[in-house]
């Protein structure tokens, strides 16, 4: 069996044309992750450019209101470009440059990963092209322009369902056509090995900081760590350094859209089955013949039919629990956090907040929840207004 397995999940299910490039990437990563010079440069970028460490904020009003566990927000929304995506992107783009690549390509759903990649490419002087489904370029027009301002070309993907999975297909196709000078900056803990491991490592700074911060603030570990899950990069980054702490519950919140009893959801763990797609064996929403299902969520960033292989394994082993959160619940949480704490979170992250609303009151006051606030919500304001039937002019 090939490399990069998490239990039965993972692997390298990609066309032969990409195999040498993937092997080269794996070797490069194994070298650079232990290279003091690379790590010093990356750390400098994370601290001086992206604004790390991010705050671990005690949400006192929310805690009091829910009347149970103490709630801490890991503020990835305060990073440069407004989400956790920058952590992975700075690592990959810096590495691509050191590998001698002159061009990066990336998929994006909501646009957060695309904006982050375009930003890193501008900073580090690499050519950049982003692939984004037409559904998403329409609903996130502002992010399209943002990427263009940063000097990137944005390609509108009109194949398939014209959303995130199709953007991934098209970016893989582009990479197959041009591997010699191009690195694919995959945005989540998915795809063929080494991506799930590499993206997790670059994102694990979230949980590493949170663990140190909570020990300093509270002198003990949290009882639960909560994060939203599409492909699963912010959740994997938040969970990773807590996996060994068996008393810490790990909870991933996936997008239930209109509800898991309907066909309009993106709840891979709740409703998916084992399959092989986008280079990995994992759980996928699919029909009885193994055709990948069109998925739906109000959140473009969670609108993906699969989940990273390490999450699939954490689910199999029972180490992490995955819960579905509907559009309605996430919008309610989005508004709640804005009113209660004065924080407009990404609609993706609001899925995690919604679950905290459900569990905090059932826990005791000496217990602690850390929730990853993976991104800020400016990009979602217009969509939420539409959802609520409010007419605004952007």
């Amino acid at each position, binding site marked *: *069996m*090939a*490399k990069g397995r998490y239990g039965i999940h993972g*692997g*390298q*299910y*990609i*066309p*032969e*044309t*990409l*195999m*040498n*490039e993937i092997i080269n990437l794996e070797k490069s990563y194994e070298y650079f992750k232990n290279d003091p010079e690379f790590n010093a440069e990356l750390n400098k970028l994370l601290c001086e450019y992206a604004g790390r460490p991010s705050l671990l904020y005690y949400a006192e009003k929310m805690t009091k209101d829910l009347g149970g566990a103490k709630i801490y927000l890991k503020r990835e929304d305060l990073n440069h470009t407004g989400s956790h995506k920058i952590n992975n992107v700075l690592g990959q783009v810096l590495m691509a440059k050191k590998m001698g690549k002159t061009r990066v390509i990336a998929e994006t759903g909501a646009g957060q990963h695309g904006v982050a990649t375009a930003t890193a490419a501008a900073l580090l002087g690499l050519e950049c092209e982003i692939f984004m489904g037409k559904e998403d370029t329409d609903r996130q027009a502002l992010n399209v322009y943002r990427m263009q301002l940063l000097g990137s070309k944005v390609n509108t993907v009109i*194949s*398939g369902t014209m959303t995130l*999975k*199709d953007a991934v*297909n098209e970016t*893989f*196709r582009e990479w*197959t*056509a*041009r*591997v010699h000078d191009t690195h694919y900056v995959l945005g989540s803990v998915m795809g063929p090995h080494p991506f799930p491991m590499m993206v997790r490592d670059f994102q694990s700074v979230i949980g590493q900081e949170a663990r140190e911060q909570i020990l300093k603030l509270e002198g003990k570990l949290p009882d639960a760590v909560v994060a939203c899950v599409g492909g699963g990069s912010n959740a994997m980054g938040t969970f990773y350094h807590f996996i060994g702490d068996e008393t810490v519950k790990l909870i991933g919140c996936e997008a239930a859209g209109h509800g898991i009893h309907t066909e309009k959801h993106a709840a891979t763990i709740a409703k998916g*089955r*084992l*399959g*092989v*797609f*986008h*280079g990995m064996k994992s759980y*996928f929403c*699919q029909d*009885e*013949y*193994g*055709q*990948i299902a069109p998925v739906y969520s109000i959140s473009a960033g969670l609108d993906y039919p699969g989940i990273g292989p390490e999450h699939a394994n954490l689910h199999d082993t029972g180490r992490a629990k995955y819960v579905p959160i509907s559009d309605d619940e996430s919008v309610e949480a989005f508004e709640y956090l804005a009113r209660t704490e004065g924080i407009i979170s990404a609609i993706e992250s609001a899925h995690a907040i919604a679950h905290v609303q459900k569990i905090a009151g059932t826990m005791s006051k000496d217990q602690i929840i850390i929730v990853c606030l993976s991104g800020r919500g400016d990009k979602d304001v217009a969509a939420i207004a539409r959802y609520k039937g409010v007419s605004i002019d952007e």
Partner: protein
Amino acid sequence: MSKIAQAFKNGKAFIGFITGGDPSMEKSEEFIMEMVRGGADLVEIGIPFSDPMAEGLVIQEANIRALSAGATVDKIFDLVASVRQKIEVPLVFMTYLNPVFNYGYPRFFARCAELGVDGIIIPDLPFEEKGELADVAAGFGVDVISLIAPTSEQRIQQIAQEATGFIYVVSSMGVTGMRSEIKTDLPSILEVVRASSPVPTAVGFGINTPKQAGEIAKIADGVIVGSAIVKLIEKHGENAGSYIYEYVRSMKNAVSEQE
């Protein structure tokens, strides 16, 4: 000897591809018969997949047409059953791993063996992962066709040594689709392949004119054409049969001249 080897017995082979169920199963059967009448030595039948990552636009759209018309793995098996009553030429499936995995490997390959499918091409199953189904397929006598790409370099020998059926040499970088020019140094790739394996080699991706096919047939044992045939279906729909026959005949003539 595998049945696929027979395809390479009548001189240089012409291998044609269509997506099963595009635009309907009845028409697929007719088009396969036309390809064989035109001289195709082996027919590749695509099992449509929602997300064909290795395909260019022409075959992507054929996948969508077939799925929209209700194509399923079971209906493709029915198509094969019907075709097999009429023709002897080797048949090979081309699909992605998920529909096969989802069907269940033993069940899938048992049906292939029962109906006379001789091989399978799975672009998202590289050498490193072929253990996934190699033993099951071999147990049912179905060849898993290996692909070699312009970027394979030091992997060529390793892949070729374990190849069965034929070796599919990908002519160009990128996805399937017609190209005006093929820039890869195919002679040196084919030289390494031949030194490592007795299995015949066929070149595909990008080939669409008789002239190109003739050039390739000088150096390879066979020529594979997909997008150009599918393009005829896109253009002529249900009436594509006679065009497919004429096209395949011209391509087979071009490769035959290179005996």
